[in-house]
């Protein structure tokens, strides 16, 4: 038992090292913008760069749209499938697994080939970006909503509400959504974490988003990218922390992602 | 020296005492049940015999060999778990043969023993099935065969039937007992179901809150409970507060009505409060026995082979069982009625 425990600690220690060393290195590097002294100069530079706020807000906007479209698309459909069309479920699952089969870079290639003629309108490019993000976030949205609905016995709840005289909008809005709150928030934060720094789609669709801005900084500056990496890490951490906090005591919180 | 001896076993989990002062001698071939509510320490005791838990103090000897701290895989004890615990990746035959395989037995010998075991549990044709293809009852039979295949010196069963349906439970219960008799294997059986314990065991250990309440044959446990706990846990006794009128003559009052008990009460002054236990099946509505109590019928519950009638005296509610038969005439609810019972039907509980 003592031997087992030694090895357990050993692997955990190795994991901690792997996890924190790059972060520490990045943080230390980000403080070196001023010669011979540690300072937050790199962070100041970043925050003072108007491009930073611009691109960040743009990505935030895209994230909000993605979440809204995702929720509107996924919740009623999954609810309906649970309630009336259980036979469709495998197909739903197949669709939501597509982002694992079609990598982001291939997806965006296809989107460009199909919709490029419409990109003369700016908003169209953005709409396609949001659509692409919705596709990327489908697995997480679907899984958290599906798990949430499974946990609450949709059929009985719906039938109970119907027998009490509730209409469909009332049922969705007053009964299903409130019960899905945790699942939806988890899905939303995960989507946020994915979309904010997303590079592949934004860059290849030539959108002024945060991810391409990061890459650009990486090519032109030395210390600012490190500061940006620390900041995006903090952001990911905050989103994940919120998910953990929301899902505490609940099994099946999905944190699996795949947009690298 | 008895075959299995548990001497002064005590088990603590942190500051919680799970088992204390546990002493038991089990003879070779005996079937002993540990009976009690969940959390009473019966499973912990069983797990100490199996070696999954180590006693804080005390000693376990099996067949004269001290085994208190022996590793579980060196004890040669068969165990059947409540949740079957069949290995899901192996066939039925693979499961049953597992113990022999890890002991390094020859393939031919394993095959023969597995076939023999399958025969014993009546699943001769299902050797190549996987556990997920079996019903709960079949899975538990396989678990039993797996435990027996290694020819253990002791068989431990941890609530083996509690995950099963009532009907299968009954069949498997009888089967376990018949297999145990056939093999003559010493068996410890943990259960919270008094009916199982009473019907299966040579002896029963009733446990509560980590302590042994009473050890005895099913007959003794049922008819002569020594503590209030045993009386209330085993059977459906009426437990009634009474006032002593004349201790030496066994005269007490229940709700102001006087009855006489066969056994006198020693060392209790007249006027003191005692607790009297009355078995529902010892009470009757027809005239029999020397004691009588008058009350009103409050409710009647039809339980199949018996009819349970609830009768209210003043404060006290008594239940009374009549055997069901087509000619039974039941009193109306609310009707005044008289209960009769013999002197021996009442027990004084400490």
């Amino acid at each position, binding site marked *: 038992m003592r031997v087992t425990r030694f090895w357990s600690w050993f692997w955990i220690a190795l994991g901690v090292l792997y996890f924190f*060393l790059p972060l520490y290195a990045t943080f230390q*590097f980000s403080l070196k913008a001023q010669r011979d002294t540690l300072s937050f100069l790199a962070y100041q530079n970043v925050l003072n760069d108007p491009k930073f706020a611009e691109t960040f807000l743009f990505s935030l906007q895209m994230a909000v749209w993605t979440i809204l479209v995702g929720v509107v698309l996924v919740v009623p459909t999954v609810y309906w499938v649970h309630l009336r*069309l259980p036979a469709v479920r495998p197909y739903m699952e197949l669709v939501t697994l597509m982002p694992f089969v079609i990598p982001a870079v291939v997806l965006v290639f296809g989107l460009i080939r199909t919709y490029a003629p419409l990109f003369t309108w700016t908003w169209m490019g953005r709409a396609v970006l949001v659509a692409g993000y919705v596709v990327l976030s489908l697995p997480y949205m679907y899984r958290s909503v599906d798990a949430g609905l499974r946990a609450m016995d949709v059929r009985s709840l719906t039938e109970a509400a119907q027998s009490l005289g509730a209409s469909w909008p009332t049922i969705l809005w007053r009964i299903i959504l409130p019960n899905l709150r945790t699942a939806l928030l988890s899905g939303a934060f995960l989507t946020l974490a994915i979309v904010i720094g997303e590079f592949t789609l934004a860059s290849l669709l030539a959108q002024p988003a945060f991810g391409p801005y*990061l890459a650009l900084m990486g090519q032109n500056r030395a210390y600012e990218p490190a500061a940006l*990496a620390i900041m995006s890490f903090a952001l990911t951490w905050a989103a994940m922390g919120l998910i953990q906090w929301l899902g505490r005591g609940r099994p099946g919180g999905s944190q699996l992602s795949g*947009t*690298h | 020296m008895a075959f299995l001896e548990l001497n002064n076993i005590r088990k603590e989990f942190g500051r919680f005492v799970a088992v204390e002062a546990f002493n038991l001698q089990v003879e070779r071939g005996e079937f002993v049940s540990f009976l009690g509510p969940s959390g009473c320490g019966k499973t912990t005791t069983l797990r100490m015999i199996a070696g999954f838990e180590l006693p804080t103090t005390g000693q376990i000897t099996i067949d004269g060999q001290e085994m208190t701290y022996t590793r579980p895989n060196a004890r040669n004890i068969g165990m059947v778990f409540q949740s079957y*615990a069949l*290995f899901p990746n192996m066939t039925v035959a693979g499961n049953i043969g597992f113990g022999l395989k890890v002991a390094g037995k020859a393939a031919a010998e394993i095959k023969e023993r597995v076939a023999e075991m399958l025969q014993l549990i009546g699943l001769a044709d299902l050797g190549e099935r*996987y556990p997920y293809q079996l019903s709960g009852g079949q899975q538990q039979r396989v678990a039993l065969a797996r435990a027996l295949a290694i020819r253990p010196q002791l068989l431990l069963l941890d609530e083996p039937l509690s995950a099963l349906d009532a009907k299968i439970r009954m069949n498997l219960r009888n089967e376990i007992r018949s297999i145990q008799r056939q093999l003559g294997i010493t068996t410890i059986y943990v259960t919270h179901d008094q009916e199982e314990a009473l019907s299966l065991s040579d002896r029963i250990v009733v446990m509560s809150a980590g302590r042994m309440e009473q050890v005895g044959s099913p007959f003794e446990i049922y008819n002569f409970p020594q503590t209030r706990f045993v009386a209330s846990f085993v059977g459906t006794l009426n437990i009634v507060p009474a006032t002593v009128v004349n201790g030496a003559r066994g005269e007490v009052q229940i709700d102001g009505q006087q009855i006489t008990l066969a056994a006198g009460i020693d060392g209790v002054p007249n006027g003191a409060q005692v607790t009297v236990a009355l078995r529902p099946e010892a009470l009757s509505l027809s005239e029999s026995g020397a004691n009588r109590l008058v009350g009103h019928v409050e409710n009647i519950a039809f339980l199949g082979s018996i009819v349970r009638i609830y009768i209210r005296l003043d404060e006290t509610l008594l239940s009374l069982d009549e055997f069901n038969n087509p000619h039974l005439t039941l009193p109306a609810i609310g009707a005044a009625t008289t209960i009769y019972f013999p002197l021996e039907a009442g027990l004084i509980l400490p």
Partner: protein
Amino acid sequence: MLLYIVLLWCFVTTKDLMAQLTAVGPSQQPMAAARFWRWLGVIPFFLFAIAFIFWPSANLFLGAFRTSDGAFTVEHLVELGQPFILEAYWLSIRISFVTALGGGIFGFLLAYAAILGGLPRFVRTALMTFSGVASNFAGVPLAFAFIATLGRVGLITVLLRDLFGFQLYQYGFNLYGFWGLSITYMYFQFPLMVLIIAPALDGLRREWREAAENLGANSWQYWRYVALPILLPTLLGAMILLFGNAFGAYATAYGLTGGSLNLVPLLIGQQVRGDVLHNPGLGYALALGMVVVMTITLIGYTWLQRRSSRWLRQAN
């Protein structure tokens, strides 16, 4: 005579058919309407899926078989045989394999240590949170972090040089090469493994271990015959998922190498940008090849998943 029989048969069958149609028709109509309405509920979702997943993908794949003026061709697929493209696939596959295996094993050991290794409970909670974060911390920022760690003036590179006089880069290490990329990918691979494998480790029931011990098995035998076979489908399935995860990774590779390394996703990216030798047909073929590899991995994953869930169906 024969003609007569044939005619009769035709008459009987048509009459039968007519009877069926007339009998079934009216009563079926409200049913059909209800069915239509029922399907309406899922139509928006599937329309979206067609518009933004299936149609664009099909478009790409058709493009792989078309010349610029629309005629059918397999030329683009043949072009995949060029040495530098084969090398790109080979490098992508190697990196994905190494990081799937390495990340898989390391992630498994970590999860095992935290869940079954007898460590305090908080270790497990912490590990799961960290894994959630790290598996999502990828792309460009991750590349920055590793440049600051293992780049030419990265923390570890400098430490090794100053403390031990060890010149990492003189011994063939290059953050922008195979091993550098692999180490970086591992950062999101092993946490993903932890997240996937943790539920499976939780599913290893205490009773199985006890039953095995009780039947005389030692620890090794328990692992060899019980635990490992039970975990194996999940383990392999998870590694397949990791493989696909690394195979499709674009942002991290781009952030690290600026798009210069010969990896399949980067090649596709180049085709999209029109940077180099613009040949859309080849790009479509590259994408097709990538999706084929990903599809194979997913099918493997599903097959293994089904197998383990079948075993565990009644056990839980």
